[in-house]
């Protein structure tokens, strides 16, 4: 089910602005890959190119290939909507649909796509997805309450449940815990550790301890200056990256000397 992602010579542009330059990396299946780097280095932009979400912004375009299971996501025959069904995404700020209940939020991927689902299948999907997101016990008695009635950390786990309910192969997370308190962050991190058994996970984080705690491999992005494109500086096993990185800039960033 989980797939690995093979990125080759990827350049991202917003109009005439060259945002990310020349990234090649291999993202392993059933593992957590963390993207770290200072603000504006293009790690979020890069993450959004992995499920073609960056195309939502007018003027954004990409050169290079992102291959999943032998298929280039940027092949003209590929439908970006289908890509996003296979590669889910969790955002920085929890964004449950305010008009929907907790259960409806979990089913949003099904219902919004006008797919029919029987009552019992829907109930099963809600339960397995919420269990998968470690939220079931907390909300099982109030599934018909609005999603916005939950705390921030619970809302974020609801968003993760919503993302895994469409049964993607890969989960992208854009700073999923940066708006949360330490306890909710811990809950999300535990969840990531469980989810990697079934999914390929790519997570952008500003928190280097978090990258060290949750990820198997870490990629460090950096940017030479404003107006310059962000670049992948190096990528290695997380343990190696945090103990003996091969590039000086990585060591400077990780040890807090800049950024």
């Amino acid at each position: 089910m989980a797939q690995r992602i093979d990125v080759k010579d990827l350049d991202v542009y917003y109009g005439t602005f060259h945002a990310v330059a020349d990234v090649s990396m291999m993202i392993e299946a059933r593992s957590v890959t963390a993207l770290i780097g200072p603000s504006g280095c293009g790690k979020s932009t890069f993450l959004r190119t992995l499920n073609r979400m960056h195309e939502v912004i007018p003027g954004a375009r990409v050169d290079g290939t992102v291959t999943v299971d032998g298929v280039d996501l940027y092949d003209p025959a590929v439908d970006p909507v289908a890509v996003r069904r296979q590669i889910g995404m969790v955002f920085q700020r929890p964004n449950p649909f305010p008009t929907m209940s907790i259960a409806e939020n979990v089913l949003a991927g099904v219902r919004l796509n006008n797919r029919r689902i029987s009552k019992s299948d829907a109930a099963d999907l809600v339960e397995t997805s919420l269990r998968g997101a470690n939220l079931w016990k907390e909300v099982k008695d109030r599934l018909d309450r609005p999603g916005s009635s939950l705390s921030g950390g619970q809302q974020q786990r609801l968003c993760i449940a919503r993302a895994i309910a469409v049964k993607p192969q890969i989960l992208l997370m854009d700073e999923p815990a940066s708006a949360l308190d330490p306890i909710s962050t811990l809950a999300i991190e535990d969840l990531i550790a469980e989810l990697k058994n079934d999914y390929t996970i790519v997570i952008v984080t500003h928190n280097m301890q978090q990258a060290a705690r949750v990820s198997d491999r870490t990629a460090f992005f950096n940017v030479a200056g404003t107006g310059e494109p962000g670049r992948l500086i190096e990528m290695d096993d997380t343990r190696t990256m945090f103990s003996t990185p091969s590039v000086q800039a990585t060591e400077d960033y990780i040890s807090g000397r800049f950024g």
Partner: protein
Amino acid sequence: MTATTTSRPDARPSTRDLLTRPDTRRRVVDRLMAVVVTSAFLIALVPLVSVIWTVLGNGIERLSPYFLVVSMRGVFGGMDAGGIYHAIVGTLMVTGFATLISVPVGLLTAIYLVEYGRGRLARAVTFFVDVMTGIPSIVAGLFAYALFAIFFGPGVRFGVVGAVALSVLMTPVVVRSSEEMLRLVPNELREAAYALGVPKWLTIVKVVLRTAVGGIVTGVMLAIARVIGETAPLLITLGVIDSINYNLFEGRMMTLPVYVFRQYSQGLVPCAPEAADCIATINYDRAWAAALVLIAIVMLLNLGARLVARYFTPARGH
């Protein structure tokens, strides 16, 4: 720094002094502004209260169930008879049909502007919507008349012509208010839907419109309230009639504003001294009562809009 302050305590005013020193100027200005704002509010209230008071005082006497359910057919002179049923029917049908035209056109335009429109075309649409907002209503009436006169010849007067005239006035209001409401929908919700693999059109229908529907309904109701009192364009396009007409596609129709105008312009009735059944001021009385009904309809619409908006507003947690 700290050391110098402690060694020379008199160098700066004490904390007590700083916290309790009266700032007279600010207090006076604060008081003054409160008075100005409150009196501006009261002045704005004067015409509103006065209008309601006058219309109620002059209109309530003539208002009766009978007045609401009969037309003016066969009523003449100072007869103590006649009502506004035909005008209520005309107002509701013509305004309803105008809404039927304006809401799809206006809403789709707003969706285009917010979700799809880029560059020159979107700017042109926005510009012309702004221009349309300023069109005098009599011009809208002449436009609708001229448009239908091409097909039906001069002197054409029926319900749809009036509805088209009203929709020319109504559409820009619907576009503007819906556009505002759609822009208020957070982009995060659109992205959340896209990330679930929901196509753009379904995202617009099921997330964006669903989230904004309360505000859109309120905007539509305000647009209706804006045109339901229009007189001039309907005088041109619908004409004047004393009997009931349920057919929007044929024959003249009466509406409440035109009825008010018509009654008032007929003026006092010259009653013969021996006629017991003659009321000299009957035309004025009918005009005021019809005006009262028109205000009541607009108020009911606003109330309905509020209820709908409340029903659709996303439930707040806790």
